[in-house]
């Protein structure tokens, strides 16, 4: 069985898959990789199921030792990475010998790096998922973030394809357009308030985490009291608390909440959102269900194409 040992976890590294689905009615957050696209791509490059467990490494500064020979792939934020001192490119399947050390520097653009290994990380399935839920202390590796010295097992399976690589999503920084659909409580805001929201520039603040991204910027004017009787919270909801500073709710969000939600970020733009870091700026672009669906479909098609190409290459 394959194993790796953590030498440096960096600021925050957790085991994540694509989420714990179907338990929000019991109060459990979905968790899962914040950048679902990069996590899926890293898995595809290692010939894993897209939902296999990967490491979500926040901002870099990570290193691990391969205790057995394994293929791996890095996707997501831009980092300088090296295997025993030899630079390794991102978005590519690389074979690591037993004993070799992978070092990942601090990201120069983007926020989250995904490390997939062939076979996927072998941590217990809790309520149908291997994702770490830090607040409940369940899933992933002992329900917590990784520490120096932790040894993770890896399932057999997956595989190494020489020269397997994929073009990654571009990491955006500076002022980034994020598409969002108005609702569910857009009618709690005045027309001018909605205009403010969809034209203002919002800055990502350091108080952001896997639960929510807190923004600072112009407060959208409300037409009604924005404290509502709690209702369910969808991934990507942008809630506006009394102070008027938006919070975009992410993977570890609470299941219900009592602030009006002015808009919802489309699933196709969550990956670029996941890669923003404090200081980056957001401009919300109003879109609709139909366009959002087209974006999502295209991203899924891209992943399916990459998968097919890799399979074809193996058959040659």
């Amino acid at each position, binding site marked *: 069985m394959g194993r790796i040992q953590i030498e440096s976890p960096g600021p925050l590294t957790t085991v994540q898959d694509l989420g714990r*689905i*179907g*338990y*929000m*009615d*019991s*109060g*459990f957050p*979905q968790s899962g990789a914040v950048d679902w696209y990069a996590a899926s791509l890293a898995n595809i490059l290692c010939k894993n199921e897209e939902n296999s467990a990967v490491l979500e490494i926040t901002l870099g500064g990570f290193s691990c030792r391969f205790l057995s020979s394994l293929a791996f792939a890095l996707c997501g934020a831009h980092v300088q990475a090296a295997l025993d001192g030899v630079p390794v490119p991102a978005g590519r399947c690389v074979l690591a010998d037993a004993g070799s050390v992978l070092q990942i520097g601090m990201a120069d653009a983007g926020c989250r790096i995904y490390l997939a290994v062939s076979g996927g990380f072998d941590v217990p399935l*809790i*309520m149908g998922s291997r994702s770490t839920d830090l607040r*409940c202390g*369940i899933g992933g590796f002992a329900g917590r973030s990784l520490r120096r010295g932790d040894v993770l097992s890896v399932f057999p399976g997956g595989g190494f394809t020489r020269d397997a690589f994929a073009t990654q999503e571009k990491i955006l920084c500076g002022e980034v357009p994020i598409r*969002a*659909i*108005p*609702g*569910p*409580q857009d009618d709690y805001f005045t027309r001018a308030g909605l205009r403010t929201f969809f034209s203002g520039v919002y800055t990502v603040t350091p108080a952001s985490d896997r639960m929510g991204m807190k923004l600072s910027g112009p407060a959208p004017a409300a037409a009604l009291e924005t404290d*509502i*009787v*709690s*209702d*369910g*919270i*969808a*991934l*990507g*909801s942008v809630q506006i608390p009394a102070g008027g500073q938006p919070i975009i709710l992410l993977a570890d969000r*609470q*299941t*219900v909440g009592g602030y009006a*939600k002015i808009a*919802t*970020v*489309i*699933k196709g733009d969550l990956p670029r959102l996941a890669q923003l870091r404090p200081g980056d700026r957001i401009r919300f672009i109003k879109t609709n*269900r139909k366009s*959002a*669906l087209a974006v*999502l*479909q295209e991203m*899924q098609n891209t992943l399916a194409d990459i998968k097919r190409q890799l399979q074809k290459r193996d058959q040659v």
Partner: protein
Amino acid sequence: MRYKILTCGEGAVTVEFSRKINSRAGAAAISLAGQLRQQNAAGICEIIPTYRSVTLCYDPLKISYKELKRLIASCVRHPRAAAQDEESVRRFYIPVCYGGPFGPDLEYLAQRSGLDPREVVRRHISREYPINMIGFLPGFPYLSGMDASIAAPRLENPREKIPAGSVGIGGNQTGIYPIASPGGWRLIGRTPVRLYDPHRDPPVLYRAGDRIRFYPVSEQEYREIEAAVSAGTYAVRTEAV
């Protein structure tokens, strides 16, 4: 019952029966959630009932918004079409040791309401509480219908850590903390029952729509139940309503 469908991006909707808390909206939400669970339609991944609405998360590449809307309409229009045999409402009997170190706010509540602490407990156990919603914490049940004479405002400064099993009062509602967490409700007792266990399926004993009845136990009984829970030999008394 009339409802509105609110858009929560391309992958979720909220079916809203009312903007305010009202018992008809709550009942409609519980009923719709139960029917949708039973229909088990492909592509629906989360069904979250609350006091006044149901939020559905779905995969728009598996079920279209149009199909979803049709499904919701047919469930609301024919609430009894889906026979609720498997989904019967259950009543859970939860043992609670009131007062003392388990209920540090019982005295405060007694003083505030001008009642004897035993009378506060009697009023708390005198009613059966419907679970309106589960949320904010895994397995935290929002229970309504409490005797108004024992209502109390939340703490101004929430406690940093409330032990798992604590039974509290927040405003007009009562509830149980299934895991240790910060919280601002007034604590009147504690249950040794494990309301939530990630290794159990389902992990939480009850769902929204079920009912809870509290009954008092002594500290010694509390310890006995606690030991049985740890040994895995304790079963919560449950019955179909």
